[in-house]
């Protein structure tokens, strides 16, 4: 293989890596924000709970897949408790939800620090590297891109093809009507929040072997997640992969050419331009196009 195609492979792996990170960092947030109208500034701390629960279970002797499952379960329970005690009072109060969840995030970070100190010993990344020419790439990080796609597909099926999905979407769109049609809206809110929490927990579990464990780790996910949600727009299921694809491509291409710093700058500039040109995100634009086409027909 000529040298150029190795470099192309580098770019491809870097894209998959960024794509996986952005999609996984975003899904949980996208569901809670996009469907329920809660701006969850504690999203990073949901991921933190997943990652810590996974790492602690692993060190307690569970094999990695089971430890990851424990991480997801712990985060789900954490989310459900929060929903019942605090979040349920905040539906429809966008700005209030922001302040409250910001407070929750501060409390969680500090509690974790008090309980477990400034770091946990890390789990080594499994699977090793893929080698090609002079180069190599982490197989686990490439695998995460596959997981991201599976998660998106599963969510698509859940929210569009199942009875639960219809009820959940009905609740989010028009609670009054849904309730009058016999939907237990309270339960729908709870289960949707639980799904969002479980996904954040899954992200934490998946990145537990690939990132150092410290109480601040949520912060590294939060910015990308918010940028992706805003760029993606109102449709959660379509917006997340599209934003992940676009931002992942920009990140990989510019990082490859100009290094990490240029990559980060390019990512933020893309977000600014996207928000300026598409205030409703990519899916907002798609919706507009569809609308116009319908009018002309």
């Amino acid at each position: 293989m000529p040298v150029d195609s190795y470099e192309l492979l580098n770019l491809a792996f870097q894209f998959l890596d960024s794509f996986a990170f952005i999609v996984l960092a975003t899904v949980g947030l996208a569901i809670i924000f996009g469907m329920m109208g809660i701006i969850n500034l504690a999203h990073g701390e949901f991921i933190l709970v997943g990652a810590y629960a996974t790492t602690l279970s692993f060190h307690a002797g569970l094999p990695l897949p089971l430890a990851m499952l424990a991480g997801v379960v712990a985060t789900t329970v954490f989310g459900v408790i929060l929903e019942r005690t605090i979040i349920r009072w905040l539906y429809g109060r966008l700005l209030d939800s922001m302040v409250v969840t910001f407070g929750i995030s501060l409390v969680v970070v500090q509690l974790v620090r008090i309980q477990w100190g400034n770091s946990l010993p890390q789990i080594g990344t499994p699977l090793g590297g893929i080698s090609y020419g002079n180069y190599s790439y982490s197989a686990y990080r490439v695998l995460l891109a596959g997981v991201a796609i599976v998660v998106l597909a599963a969510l698509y099926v859940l929210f569009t093809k199942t009875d639960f999905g219809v009820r959940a979407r009905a609740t989010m769109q028009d609670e009054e009507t849904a309730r009058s049609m016999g939907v237990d809206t309270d339960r729908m809110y709870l289960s949707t929040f639980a799904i969002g929490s479980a996904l954040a927990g899954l992200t934490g579990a998946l990145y537990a072997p690939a990132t150092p464990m410290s109480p601040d780790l949520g912060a590294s996910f939060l910015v990308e997640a918010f940028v992706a949600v805003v760029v993606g727009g109102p449709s959660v299921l379509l917006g997340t992969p599209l934003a992940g694809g676009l931002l992942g491509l920009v990140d990989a291409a510019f990082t490859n050419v100009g290094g990490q710093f240029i990559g980060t700058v390019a990512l933020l500039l893309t977000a600014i331009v996207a928000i300026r040109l598409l205030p409703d995100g990519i899916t907002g634009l798609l919706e507009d196009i569809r609308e116009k086409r319908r009018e002309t027909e």
Partner: protein
Amino acid sequence: MTRRGISRRSVLAGAGVGTLTTIGGCLSDGGVLGDSGGDDGPTIAVLEDRSGEFALNGTSKWQASLLAVQELNEDGGVLGEEIEVYDPDPQSDNQRYQELTREAINSEDIDALWAGYSSATREAIRPIINEEEQLYFYTTQYEGGVCDRTTFAMGATARQQLGAVIPYMIEEFGPRIYTIAADYNFGQLSGDWVQILADEHDAEVVAEEYIPLGETDFGSTINNIQGEEPDFIASMLVGDSHANFYEQRADTGLDIPMASSTTMAQGYEHLRLEPPALEDMYVGVNYMEEVQTDASQTFVDSFYEEYPDADYLNQEAQNNYFSVHMWAEAVERAGTFDQEEVIAELESGIEVDAPEGTIELDPATHHMTHHMRIGHADENHEVTFDQEQYIEPSFLHEVGCDLTEESEQTQYTPGEFYDAI
């Protein structure tokens, strides 16, 4: 006295005395209450991060300072007086550092200040320190170059740390160096030092990459390194997020050896990350808790006896520890807490028995001559030491900094003095 005792007292002092001395301080400016500021006995401020970005590095600095104070107090205090400590948590926030520094100087009427992990923090509070002519100890290993009349830099400089390890690596592995460093003043200047040292030893920096703090994904950096095939990597990465690099390096099987001035001795990556992430990491250090000397063993034992749950005893913690003792020694010799006289005493070229070995303060530059060692982590993260040298803070001598002759408040950068940059 327990740690809790000290901190509870200082909290009370912070709350109660703080309010009183705001009033008292105003009055004392007019000379009504004299110079006591409403506070009795000596107070030192220890502003070290116990939360936020640098908590991992700051916590043991704080603990070691309190340990030194406790030892002094158990021994009858300094000049027969018990030392009080003012130690709120600055939370790795430079703005909070500025507020707390002002608070410490104006309301707590401190006799000496220990503050800050990062160079950015030091530069954020140095104007306040200069304005108030406050005796200040900065204990982190750093890029070097600060020539400042009231500032005493206790950590080894880049010239000392990298000066120990880079020539060693060139000798052992070859002349092609790939530099990766944190993208702020510390990392940029450290990168310049690698360049200078490479130039002095007929080696070559084949590429350098500066990485924003908080970056966690190093796939492309690793690909770039693999593309260049260097003989070794010079890494001045900083903080939790950057530790991802080592994990990803092991994960992708990148087995090029690494030299560093930042890893292991500060954030104990060799204990936090699963082996073999730090395999073949060589770090130039004046101290790590693994250093095998009697003085070090005694220090490590009393530290963990006091803080059984502490994660690690890092290089900076040692610097805090010996510098508190050094300050007390200077006060005893001066016979007063008066900061000008204590500075004069420190400038007489004081010598201390630190855990790293007996070291001396260089009067002209306010830096320490350190015992520099090369710490090496193997594939199981066992640390061994090689090649101990006693290295002077030479860069400031080269630029002509002599604080005993001329008062200055400058930070010199290597780029102004070396053609290699």
